[in-house]
C-alpha cells in the first residue's frame, strides 16, 4: 500500500515537475530520471546538437500550433451560430493559398540546415581512437574490442535482472531491466567507433544519452561513433523487435577515466589468459558441476527451467540428450538445433564453461550419469566437426 501511495504522489507531482524540466535543462539532475518527459541531454557533442535540433523543431511547432489553434479556437468562440452570426460565403483566395504554401516551405528550409550539418557529423566515423565490434544475438549483446595485434577482447553482455524481479516475486531493483552482467567500458573523451552487426535477426543498439541508435543487421556491418565527454554509466536497450525477449537485452556503457579504462582492460586480459590456462587443465567432477551450475543459471535456465523441467526449451531432466552419448550432447550445446529456439552456444561459451555446463546437465536434475566432459574434449569436438 505504501508503494501505491508513493506512486500516486509521484503521479500528481510528476507532470508538474516535468514541465519545469522541459523549459530549464538544469532543473533536471542526472539521477532523477523518474517521469522524465524529454530527451536526455546527451553527453556527446553530436548528441547535444541532436538535442538542440529537437528542441528547435519543438518550439517552432509550438509557435505554429499556438497561432493555428489560436485562430481556430477564436473562430469556434466567436463564429458560432448561437451568437447569432450570419455565415460569410468567401471560399477562395489564391494569394492566401500561395502565402501558406510558401511560408511553411521557407520554415522547412531553415530547419533543414542544422539537420543536414548534424547528419554529416553523425556520419563522420574517421579518426577513431578505438573500435568495438558489437554483435546482436537473441537476446544478448557481444562486444569485441578490436586490437591491431589481433588480441581481441571478447565478452557477452546479458541482462542481470533476475526472473524473480520480472515475475514480481521479489522487489524490483533500482536499475530494473537496465542492468547487465558485463558492461561495455570505454574511456572518456575518446572517439569510439562502433561496428554493429547481428548474428540472427535484426537488433538495434540504442543508448539515448550517447545519442546512438543503429540497427544491427545480420550479414552487414554498420558504422557509427560517439565520444562521451562525461564519465558515468549510460543505459539503453535493444530498439528493434527481435523476438520473444526483445525487451530483455539492455545495454550498459560505463564511461571511465583513461586510467581506469587501462586497468579494466588489463584485468580483462588477465582474465582471458586465465581461461586459456584453464582450458588445458583437467577438472574433477565436483569442480565442473560447481562451475556448470553458475553457467546453467546464466545461460540455460530461462528456457530450460531452474530444475531442468523445460519451458520454452525442452526438459533436460531425464532427456535422451543429457542421458545419451556425450557427442550428441556436445553437438546440441555447441551448434544448437536449427529451426528451434535452441541457439548455438559454441561461440558464446568458452570451452571451460561449455565443458562445465554439459557435465552439470548430465549430473543434475536426477540425470546421474556420473560421466564428465573436460575442456579439451570440447576443443577436440569442435575441431572434429
Amino acid at each position, binding site marked *: 500500500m505504501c508503494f501505491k501511495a508513493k506512486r500516486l504522489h509521484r503521479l500528481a507531482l510528476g507532470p508538474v515537475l516535468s514541465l519545469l524540466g522541459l523549459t530549464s535543462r538544469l532543473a533536471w539532475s542526472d539521477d532523477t530520471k*523518474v517521469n522524465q518527459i524529454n530527451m536526455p541531454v546527451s553527453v556527446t557533442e553530436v548528441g547535444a546538437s541532436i538535442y538542440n535540433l529537437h528542441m528547435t523543431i519543438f518550439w517552432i*511547432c509550438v509557435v505554429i500550433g499556438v497561432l493555428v489553434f489560436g485562430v481556430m479556437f477564436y473562430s469556434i468562440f466567436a463564429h458560432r451560430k448561437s451568437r447569432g452570426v450570419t455565415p460569410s460565403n468567401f471560399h*477562395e483566395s489564391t494569394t492566401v493559398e500561395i502565402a501558406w504554401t510558401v511560408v511553411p516551405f521557407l520554415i*522547412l528550409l531553415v530547419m533543414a540546415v542544422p539537420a543536414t550539418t548534424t547528419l*554529416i557529423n553523425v556520419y563522420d566515423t574517421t579518426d577513431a581512437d578505438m573500435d568495438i565490434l558489437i554483435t546482436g544475438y537473441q537476446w544478448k549483446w557481444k562486444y569485441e574490442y578490436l586490437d591491431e595485434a589481433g588480441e581481441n577482447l571478447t565478452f557477452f553482455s546479458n541482462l542481470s535482472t533476475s526472473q524473480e524481479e520480472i515475475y*514480481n516475486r521479489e522487489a*524490483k531493483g533500482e536499475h530494473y531491466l537496465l542492468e547487465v552482467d558485463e558492461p561495455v567500458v570505454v574511456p572518456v573523451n575518446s572517439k569510439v567507433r562502433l561496428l554493429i552487426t547481428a548474428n540472427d535477426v535484426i537488433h*538495434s543498439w540504442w543508448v539515448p544519452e550517447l545519442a546512438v541508435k543503429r540497427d544491427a543487421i545480420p550479414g552487414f556491418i554498420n558504422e557509427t561513433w560517439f565520444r562521451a565527454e562525461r564519465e558515468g554509466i549510460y543505459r539503453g536497450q535493444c530498439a*528493434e523487435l527481435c523476438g520473444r525477449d526483445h525487451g530483455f537485452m539492455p545495454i550498459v556503457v560505463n564511461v571511465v577515466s583513461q586510467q581506469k579504462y587501462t586497468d579494466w582492460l588489463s584485468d580483462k586480459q588477465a582474465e582471458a589468459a586465465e581461461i586459456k590456462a584453464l582450458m588445458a587443465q583437467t577438472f574433477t567432477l565436483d569442480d565442473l558441476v560447481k562451475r556448470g551450475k553458475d553457467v546453467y543459471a546464466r545461460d540455460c535456465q530461462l528456457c530450460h527451467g531452474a530444475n531442468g523441467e523445460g519451458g520454452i526449451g525442452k526438459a533436460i531432466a531425464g532427456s535422451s540428450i543429457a542421458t545419451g552419448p556425450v557427442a550428441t550432447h556436445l553437438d546440441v550445446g555447441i551448434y544448437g538445433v536449427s529451426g528451434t529456439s535452441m541457439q548455438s552456444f559454441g561461440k558464446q561459451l568458452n570451452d571451460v564453461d561449455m565443458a562445465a555446463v554439459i557435465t552439470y546437465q548430465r549430473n543434475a536434475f536426477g540425470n546421474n550419469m556420473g560421466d564428465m566432459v573436460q575442456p579439451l574434449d570440447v576443443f577436440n569436438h569442435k575441431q572434429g566437426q
Partner: protein
Amino acid sequence: MGEHHHGPAKGLKRWIFATNHKDIGTMYLWFSFAMFLLGGAFAMIIRAELFQPGLQLVEPGFFNQMTTMHGLIMVFGAIMPSFVGLANWMIPMMIGAPDMALPRMNNLSFWILPPTFLLLASTLFMEGGAPAFGWTFYAPLSTTYAPPSVTFFIFAVHLLGLSSIMGSINIVATVWNLRAPGMTWMKMPLFVWTWFITAYLLIAVMPVLAGAVTMMLMDIHFGTSFFSAAGGGDPVLFQHVFWFFGHPEVYIIILPAFGVVSQIIPTFARKPLFGYDSMVYATASIAFLSFIVWAHHMYTVGMPIAGELFFMYATLLIAVPTGVKVFNWITTMWRGAMTFETPMLFCIGFVVLFTLGGFTGVMLSMAPSDFQYHDSYFVVAHFHYVMVAGAVFSMTGAVYYWLPKWCGRMYSEPMGKIHFWISFVGFNLAFFPQHFVGLAGMPRRIPDYASQFADFNMLSSVGAFIYGGSQILFLYNVISTIVAGKPVSDDKVWEGAEGLEWTVATPAPFHTFAVPPRVK
C-alpha cells in the same frame, strides 16, 4: 419505361449475394467495426500487461503476438474496410450514380474479407502461435525465425491485397464512368476526390506488398535467399520493399479521412469549403510525395548519407500540402456560423489531434533527431495521433454524420457528445504520455519496462481503457438509433448540408438515382 424498383432479396441471400452498393457498404462497415473491437481487445491486453512493470498477465511471446495482431487487424481489418464501406455507401450517392460500376466484383471484394480474417485470427490457436514479428514483419524475424503460422499470414495478406485491389478498381471505374451529367471533375465532392486518388495508390502499392510476402514465402519454403545475407540477399531489401508499400499505405488510410472532414466542416460551419481547388491539388501532391519518402522509416538501417538527405528533404516537403489542408479547414470555419453536433466535434478533434500528429511527424522526419525517436514510444504516440485521432475520429464523425441518411433515424445527440468527450479525454490520456516515455528512452514493442516509465504507462493504460470502453457507448448509440431512433424525414438532415446525397429521400431508398440527376 415504367420504373421498376425492386427491393432487396429476403433473408440471408440478401447479404450473401448482395450487389447493391448500400448493402455492401453496410456489410463493410459492420465488419470493420467488429474487427475494430477485436483489434481493440488485443490493445486492451497490451495495455493491461503494461499497466505496471513486471510480467503479470501474458508471456513475452504472446505479447508480441498481440502487438502484431493488433496492428494487422486495425490497419487491414478495421480502418481500411471501414473507409471502403463508406466509399460504397457514399460515392454513388455523391456523384449521382445508381450503384458502383462493378457490383458483382464488389460482392467478391467484400466476401473475401471475413474468411481471410478468420484465417488470420486462427493463427492464434496454431502450434507456435500467431505471427509475433510486428505488423511490419521485418525479415529475417518473419522468415527464418518465424513461427509456422507465417505461411497462413502470407496467404491472408495475398487475399487482403486481392480484395483491396478489386475494391479500388471498382471505385476508379465508378468515378470515371458513372458521374451524373454536369458532375465535372472539379465539382466532385472532396470525399470522392480523396478516394479516387486513394484507389490509385492502392492499385499501385498492394502488388508491391504481395511481392514482399511472396519473396518471404520463397525464402521460407523454396530455398531462396532474398532476405538472407548468407545466401547473397539482404534483410534491408525487405524493409525497402515493405515501406515502398507501407508509406503510401498510411496515406491510403488518411486521405479518405481528409475527404470526410472536408465534407463535414463546411456543413456545420454553414459555409462552403475554403480553397476547394487547392484541396484537390494538395491531395494529389501528398499522393505523389508518398512514393518518394519511404526510407524515412529506415533512417537507422545505415543508408548512405546521400540517401538519408534525399529522404529527409522529400519528407519535409509533405508538411507543405498537409499544412495547406489544415489551414483550409480552419479558414472554412472562420466567419462561418458554427454549431457543434457530434460529427463536427469529431472533426474538430481530428483537426487538433491530427495536427499534433503532423508536428511530431515533422520532428520525426529530421534524420538526426530520428536516431533518438526511432522505434521508441514517441513513434507509437505519433502514429496513433494520425491513425486513431486522424482516421478513426473522422470515421466515427462520418458515421454520426451520415447515419440519419442511411437509416432515417436520428442518433442521440447527448450520447454522441458524451462519446466524443470520453473518446477525446481517453485518447489523449492514453497516447500523450507516450511521447514522454518515448523521448525518455522507452523502446516500443516491449512487454515490460524500466521502473522510471511506470507512472506514465499506468496513465496510458487507464486512458486506453477509457477510450476502449467509449466504443461500447458508440455501438449502443448506433444500434439504438437503428432500432428506435427518432425518425428523420427531412432529405437534408443537416441545415448546412450540401451535395447530391442530401437530395435523395431519407432514409436513402434501396435504389437511388435510377435516373441521373443533372448537376448545375
